């Protein structure tokens, strides 16, 4: 024992106690330093990571902004779409659940099982959709049985709905699921995969205004991803309200006037360039695209030989036919190659360069002045005038009116048409220009192509004596607090100068077309309003004049060979308000096929103006 004590009292051993205590303290100090590093220095980082661990953000879709007509009438809106989903975490026995649910939803149990399996790749806090866009009836049925259906949710979300069933589909556009390319383009910053975005027209071009801002639900989850509670909700901000320049009622009338015929029609305000109506026939229902179009519907639309998806107003290129004669007349008056009263003879045909070019009237028109030539659309008269004027002067005049270039329609898809010149032909065909080509260009055939939009802009410029206007489709865009985000102002692209006499001569001729006996546009005649117009019948396929026409069983020209019918008009002639371009594809004759459509549009326009005036007067009285 004594030995024991002696050893213990040795300074070296005593120091060992001290050393061990100090060592333990040092180790604990190290642990404390580490804790300091984690809890004080690293606090923010770890705090954030712990928050990220336990929270998940669920996006709340923003309702897309509605689209109104110029008078505030709804054209495109959202309708509630009911979705039945299931929270996997709340289901104990899914087979029992499916057995109860299947008859309520009118689906097979296997379908529900399939959907469930599909949903397993998502985190458990995300509801799995079992049935989408079900009827209100089914939704209510499911809600009634809610107690027996643990974990089943009924969700409502906004889905795009076209109240006009496609009447203005080519102007308003449609939606589609966002593509990978779009996601990466940077134009769709707040979108994520699976979202729907505007694909065409207004829905596409003004998507940034329409999309709104997504809301968020911040939820707390546990380690299995089980949703525990909602921490925060940021409601979505609905998209802005777009007011188009379109007049819903005029649009309906324009669309209806076509019946089953194909073609395009556009109504412009001659003073502002606003598009009041715009129809491309046949049309489609954008509602089909609201939640992804069925592949058979899509195939049907794409394969339809009458191209329902194409906006023929801006993308359909047609030979303008006799509607081009107005430009020829104006150009010749400016060049001084004719005067307003000069009379030129037509014996039914015209020969140049060894070819014979016939007038539509085989017997000929005899001597005509400008007015008669326009009224009766004498081809020979214009052959001669055009040839004397020359192709380059003629083309220059046409280009002034906005032909041959995009007119500046504010949305994508516009075609530029063709206005040929000698140089143009050299470039495209590497061949010289022939006199005969000037001859047929003078009646809007040959190489000349124009879109209905271009023709309407041209007609508006003739009606307002030279103002070439940029077409407008948006009147204004407002947010829900009433702030104006965008307001369109009329834009004059160009002022064309002709003498007052020249304008008047041509305008008088156009009035005669509709209002005088033997006028080709009599079909558009209206008693209450003076209409000015010009018909056009354009060959679809150029064929040699002597060639025998092949006929179908009924003795008629087959549909695809029938000429397009065109009619340009403005009204009222004394003080023009609207300009119209109508093309009826394969409609045969401008006067008889397109004339009645023009007539209906103007008639409806005047009615609507009358109603508005009436309302105004009533308003004043009150």
């Amino acid at each position, binding site marked *: 024992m004594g030995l024991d004590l002696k050893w213990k009292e040795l300074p070296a051993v005593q120091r060992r106690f001290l050393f061990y205590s100090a060592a333990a303290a040092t180790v604990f100090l190290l642990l404390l330093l580490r804790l300091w590093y984690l809890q004080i220095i690293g606090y923010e980082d*770890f705090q954030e990571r712990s928050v990220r661990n336990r929270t998940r953000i669920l996006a709340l879709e923003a309702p897309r902004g509605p689209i109104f007509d110029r008078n505030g009438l709804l054209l495109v809106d959202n309708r509630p779409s009911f979705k039945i989903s299931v929270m996997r975490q709340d289901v104990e026995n899914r087979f029992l659940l499916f057995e109860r649910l299947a008859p309520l939803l009118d689906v097979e149990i296997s379908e529900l099982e399939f959907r469930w399996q599909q949903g397993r790749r998502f985190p458990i806090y995300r509801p799995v959709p079992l049935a989408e866009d079900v009827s209100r009836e089914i939704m209510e049925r499911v809600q009634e049985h809610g107690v027996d259906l643990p974990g089943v949710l009924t969700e409502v979300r906004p889905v795009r709905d076209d109240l006009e069933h496609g009447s203005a589909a080519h102007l308003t556009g449609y939606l589609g699921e966002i593509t990978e390319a779009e996601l990466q383009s940077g134009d769709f910053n707040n979108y994520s995969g699976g979202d729907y975005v505007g694909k065409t027209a207004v829905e596409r071009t003004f998507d940034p205004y329409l999309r709104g801002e997504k809301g968020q639900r911040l939820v707390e989850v546990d380690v299995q991803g089980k949703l525990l509670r909602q921490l925060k909700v940021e409601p979505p901000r609905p998209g802005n309200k777009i007011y188009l320049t379109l007049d819903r009622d005029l649009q309906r009338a324009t669309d209806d006037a076509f019946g089953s015929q194909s073609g395009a029609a556009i109504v412009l305000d001659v003073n502002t360039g606003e598009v009041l109506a715009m129809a491309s026939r046949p049309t489609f229902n954008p509602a089909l695209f609201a939640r992804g179009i069925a592949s058979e519907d899509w195939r049907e639309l794409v394969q339809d030989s009458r191209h329902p998806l194409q906006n023929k107003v801006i993308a359909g290129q047609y030979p303008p036919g006799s509607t081009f004669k107005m430009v020829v007349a104006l150009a010749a008056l400016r060049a001084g190659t004719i005067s307003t009263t000069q009379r030129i003879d037509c014996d039914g045909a015209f020969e140049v360069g060894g070819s014979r070019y016939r007038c539509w009237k085989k017997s000929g028109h005899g001597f005509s002045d400008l007015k008669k030539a326009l009224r009766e659309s004498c081809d020979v008269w214009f052959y001669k005038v055009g040839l004397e004027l020359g192709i380059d002067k003629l083309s220059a005049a046409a280009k002034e009116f906005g032909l041959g270039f995009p007119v500046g329609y504010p949305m994508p898809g516009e075609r530029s048409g063709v206005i040929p010149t000698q140089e143009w032909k050299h470039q495209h065909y590497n061949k010289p220009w022939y006199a005969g080509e000037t001859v047929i260009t003078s009646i809007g055939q040959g190489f000349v192509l124009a879109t209905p939009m271009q023709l309407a802009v041209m007609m508006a410029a003739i009606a307002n004596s030279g103002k070439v206007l940029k077409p407008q489709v948006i009147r204004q865009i407002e947010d829900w607090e009433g702030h104006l985000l965008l307001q369109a102002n009329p834009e004059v692209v160009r002022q064309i100068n002709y003498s007052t006499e020249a304008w008047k001569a041509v305008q008088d001729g156009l009035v005669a077309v509709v209002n005088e006996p033997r006028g080709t546009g009599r079909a558009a005649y209206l008693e209450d309003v003076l209409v000015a117009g010009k018909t056009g019948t354009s060959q679809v396929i150029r064929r040699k004049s002597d060639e025998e026409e092949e006929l179908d069983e009924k003795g008629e020209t087959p549909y695809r060979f029938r000429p397009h019918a065109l009619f340009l008009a403005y009204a009222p002639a004394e003080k023009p308000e609207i300009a119209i371009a109508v093309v009826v594809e394969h409609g045969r004759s401008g006067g008889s096929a397109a004339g009645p459509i023009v007539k209906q549009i103007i008639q409806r326009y005047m009615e609507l103006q009358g109603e508005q005036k009436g309302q105004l007067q009533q308003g004043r009285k009150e």
Partner: protein
Amino acid sequence: MFDRRLVSHFDWVLLLTVLLLAGIGIVNLFSATASWNSTTTPLYLKQLLWLSGGVLIALIICLFDYRHLEYFAVHFYGLSIGMLVYVLFMGKTTMGATRWIDLGFFNLQPGEVVKIAVILLLARYFGKTANSFGYSLFELLKPTLWLLLPVVLVLKEPDLGTAAMVVSIAATMLLFAGLKRGTLIGLGLIGVLTAVVGWFGLHDYQRARIRTFMNPEADPLGSGYHIIQSKIAVGSGGFFGKGFIQGTQSQLSFLPERHTDFAFSVFAEEWGFAGSLVLLFLYLFLIVWGLYVARRAADRFGLFLAVGVTAMIFWHIVVNLGMVIGLLPVVGVPLPLFSYGGTSMVTTMIGVGLLMNVSMRRFKF
């Protein structure tokens, strides 16, 4: 026979420190398991039961003079080796490791018994062989062999944590006994060599744990998950903590093993740096007090016994805390008095009982 000095010398400080730590541990356990909707007895109550049992055992140990244990140390060592051999062949296997003997009401871990047995045996050896100038390598051959036998058996289970723990305790006692300079260097070399060879003898999961410890972010969902989640829990506690039962990492189950090995992470998350500071201070106090007990011990056996027990508690604390705050690899070592578990509690309390025994018999005659 009964000596009144036993009462006057009773180490109240030690007992109170232990009870305080265990009390905090039970409160913490209440929070760690708060989100469990179990129908059986709550874990914190069970732990309270283990603590009561442990205190009882400690008191019983105090009744006998620890010097009698010097004699039984060899028998006890033999018994523990027997248990290790038994467990190797007939033990209960969970998660690829065989560590338990099923006693029906209780799963006995021979690995824990071995710690006490080795402490007793080494205390006996160093108590008997007085050497003022340090031990030579040759003199240490016998205790080294005694040590190696259970260590190899434990590694066979395999239980790297316990093996490392037993070696650490033994090394601490050895260093205290004193070594010749050459012996120290020689042992150091042997240690390094063993580590190199041992690396290849490790199980894949053990190697993965060490690799993951080096770089936990490389495998955040696999073996790195424990460390990352624990660090997030601790770090997000900040200075004052998230509050009792407010720790999101623990309450939402992001923290694994939060009632056992990672109990401290729960505490650090909910009580912050401030709470951790207090807890660490208490633990350090316990260690320093243990060394104080050793210093006042009446004989060399008692001294080494106290050093051994203190080393056992110390290494458990350091390895566990080092693990949960990302300083050491994840080895399944519980935090004494804090982690849930009967074996750990009983082992610790046996150690505490031995300390108290040595402490209250510090008078010389």
